């Protein structure tokens, strides 16, 4: 009888461990959503009512900039990104800022302070970051008309060298 109880206990313990392992695998596979391919997102807008879905910009070249109001290098590059938006929107280029890990009100304040007119979306929890492999702010991705990443910038686009690199990436994406 005691041996049977012991065996039952062992089976239950193994089943529990297996169950927890399965849950862990499920959580890792579905929880972080980290993939090599950029994912679509549908986020609320900053300073404007409504939502903004990345897929709605298919057919345009998107300069996707991940930023936060507390990020100092983001302040350095914001005026340049605004200039890119103003200069190239007529060609079918959209600069899209995604504010992450931030207070929404701070994002609004940042946009007002730097007179940003390009579309801004809010992702407080940072749910979009893993699918782009974003590990810090700012990071910028140039997506071609099919939504494929053609260039990535880790850190601020604030030097003439980086400006040229962004311009060339946009040109390449427009030709695709």
């Amino acid at each position, binding site marked *: 009888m005691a041996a049977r109880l012991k065996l039952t206990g062992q089976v239950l313990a193994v089943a529990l461990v297996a169950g927890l392992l399965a849950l862990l695998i499920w959580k890792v596979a579905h929880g972080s959503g980290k993939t090599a391919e950029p994912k679509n997102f549908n986020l609320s807008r900053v300073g404007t009512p409504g939502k903004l879905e990345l897929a709605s910009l298919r057919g345009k070249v998107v300069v996707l900039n991940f930023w936060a109001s507390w990020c100092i290098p983001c302040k350095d590059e914001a005026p340049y990104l605004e200039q890119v938006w103003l200069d190239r929107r007529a060609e079918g280029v959209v600069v899209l800022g995604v504010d992450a890990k931030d*207070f929404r009100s701070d994002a609004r304040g940042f946009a007002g302070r730097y007179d940003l007119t390009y579309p801004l979306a809010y992702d*407080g929890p940072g749910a979009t970051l893993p699918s782009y492999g974003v590990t810090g702010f700012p990071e910028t991705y140039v997506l071609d008309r099919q939504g494929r990443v053609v260039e990535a910038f880790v850190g601020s686009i604030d030097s003439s060298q980086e400006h040229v690199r962004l311009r060339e990436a946009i040109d390449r994406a427009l030709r695709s």
Partner: protein
Amino acid sequence: VKLAASLAMLVALVWAAAAAGPAVGAQGRPSAAQLESELVCPVCETTLDQSDSPIAERMKAFIRARIAAGDSAKQIEDKLVAQFGPGVLATPSKSGFGLLAWRVLDPELERRVDEELARFEG
């Protein structure tokens, strides 16, 4: 000896329950220090009291401002969860996947936390 051991255990349990209690200060107001030890910086993923990152400092300022405005600890936590998601809570939530952690880890702890929360919210 048994009585002394039981008393010691009881004292330890009461002390632990008090230490793990709600983030309420002596005046009945939420305690900033307690909240900062219970909420996680979304960038560095340590508790706020362990971080001096810009967003952690901003969140600490928010907590102090909300305490001054008269918010309860729960209201402050809810507001931060609304901005940053449930990941800002250092302990798992008591719903969805987070609930499983409470169920699997320690039903006794769950019962004690329920009691603490009921006392806190009541």
